[in-house]
């Protein structure tokens, strides 16, 4: 069923500034979509709207057939925990928790940490962090921190992965490593991936590229 946006608008500030201008689009299940565009084109805003973190000023979005407008808060919070994973430009790891505990954080919400622990360890091993599970974020490099953040996003085996400039703060080697992980998640787990990126090379790794200009889809 994927994600469908119906003529969504987003207006911010006073005087109101139209950031997203009546975008309609469909992202199919298992599809890897990249969103590109210049700074201020509305890429991140569109990603946050599609991922339910932000609400459109007009229009509606459906995820897995559920209208976000009609969905109750309680259901939306559960849906985010069980079906969505987020990766941001900055890792946003909790500095007081170890790498493994950070990965288990989504599972802790539903007290499923014991059930998810095996998968969390498997992901960290797969991302080359087998010997760093007990380390605090400050004891990890930037690339390692971002890999832990991706492991956290994938720990609940989500149907949707939303990534906002996941390589933005990384060097090219770490950036490529992160992109490979995201691409593998899309291919192996059939996770629907929506990724915002500035990098045209990384955008080309996606099945489809959506290019935004001034809040509107210029090409896809």
């Amino acid at each position: 069923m994927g994600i469908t946006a119906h003529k969504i608008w987003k207006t911010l500030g006073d005087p109101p500034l139209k950031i997203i201008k009546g975008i309609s689009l469909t992202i199919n299940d298992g599809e890897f979509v990249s969103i590109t565009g210049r700074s201020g084109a509305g890429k991140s805003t569109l990603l946050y709207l599609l991922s339910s973190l932000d609400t459109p000023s007009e229009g509606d979005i459906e995820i897995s057939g559920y209208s976000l407008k009609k969905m109750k808060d309680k259901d939306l919070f559960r849906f985010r925990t069980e079906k969505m994973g987020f990766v941001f430009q900055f890792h946003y790891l909790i500095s007081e928790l170890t790498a493994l505990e950070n990965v288990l954080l989504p599972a802790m919400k539903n007290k499923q940490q014991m059930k998810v622990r095996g998968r969390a360890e498997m992901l960290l091993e797969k991302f080359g962090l087998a010997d760093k599970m007990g380390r605090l974020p400050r004891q990890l490099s930037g690339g390692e921190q971002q890999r832990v953040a991706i492991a956290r996003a994938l720990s609940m085996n989500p149907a949707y992965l939303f990534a906002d400039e996941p390589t933005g703060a990384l060097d090219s080697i770490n950036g490529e490593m992160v992109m490979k992980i995201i691409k593998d998640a899309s291919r192996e787990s059939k996770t629907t991936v929506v990724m915002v990126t500035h990098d045209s090379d990384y955008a080309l790794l996606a099945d489809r590229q959506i290019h935004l200009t001034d809040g509107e889809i210029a090409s896809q």
Partner: protein
Amino acid sequence: MIFLAIRYLLAKRKQTLFTLMGIFFGSAAFVAISGFFIGFQDYIVDKLVNTSAHIHIQAREDFLEEHSLDSSFFGKNSGYVFWSPPPSGRKDNARVENPQGWYDRLSVDPRVEAYSPQLTASGIFSKAKSSVTASIIGCNPAQQAKVTTIASLMEEGKFTDIAAGGNRLIVGKELMKRLGATVSQTILVSVGTGSPTPFKIVGYFNSGNKNSDLQAYGSLEDVQKLNGTPNTVNEIAVSLKDYKQATNLALLWSKISSEKIESWEQQNSSLFSMFALQDALRYMMIIAILTVAGFGIYNVLTMTVSHKKKDIAILRSMGYSPKEIVYIFLSQGLILGVSGAILGMLFGYLICLYLQTLQFAGAPGSATTEQMHISLAFSIFAQSSMLAIFSSTIASIIPALAAGRLSPIEIIREGAE
């Protein structure tokens, strides 16, 4: 979520420890000071309740007012009478009216444990050239022993030795000392204008209180005869099964009789005012300490919320609800409150145990020492924990609600800028 709250607290160990200390000292001080004051109050109340009667029914006490005598002098329809000067003074009755009616009522009342009719008179006690003014109380010793602890205060002789009559006396230690008398000696007692009557001392008591020890007890009939008032009593001392009912019963009985009826609480009202003042000071002190501790918690949590905005954003993106975010920060305050209260109460309890081992001098003039009476009542610990938890909840609710209101998307946008 408690797990995360604990981790946040452990990450700022020094701050957490200082905040915890505030609650800790507040709770410990409350338990120790309350234990001391309540123990003291209980000790005093225990003394009052156990050593004297719970209700005193005494001869009525009337005061003359400006028009009290109008009808007596000028008849019922005298109109308005001007007095110059107006009458004033007391017109006390020297005896309890219809004591038999009281005996009948008290003996069938299920709330009454025992009662003892008394006749108290002021007399002059003399032996050779020594003479002392003191009270002589006439009573039935078997009944009197049920309403007071006088029988247990006997140092020589038995209180019931006066039961047989025949002008026998039990005197207080102080009275005996001032007369220079000893047991088995005869002294002279005179009341009012009556001639001195010989009484034999058959025993003495020591209550530790000089005023109480300046009294003498004789049989009711002997004192009535001495006073020239046969079959008369001026007080009925009553003990109750539940001493806490004394004031209510005294008020009830006052409505249905003309006698002056007072409970032990009414007779010692100034003492209870002092207890109320002690309680007010105790609560003010704990509130002051816990307010300071509460501000500590407020500051720590406000700083934490401010520093943990990104954590809040990522938790919200994972599906944590605003309520759960509030819970994470509120529980930090509660953890501080609960753990501070538990440790503080434990420390306060240890202080109380230590205080209980200390000795203090007994009543003035008494050579005895007593152990400190420290209360370890459950209510002290319940109040202490409630106050600590209440203050920490109030202090943490504002920053916790602020954390719950934060918009994840705004935090992420701020982070990206």
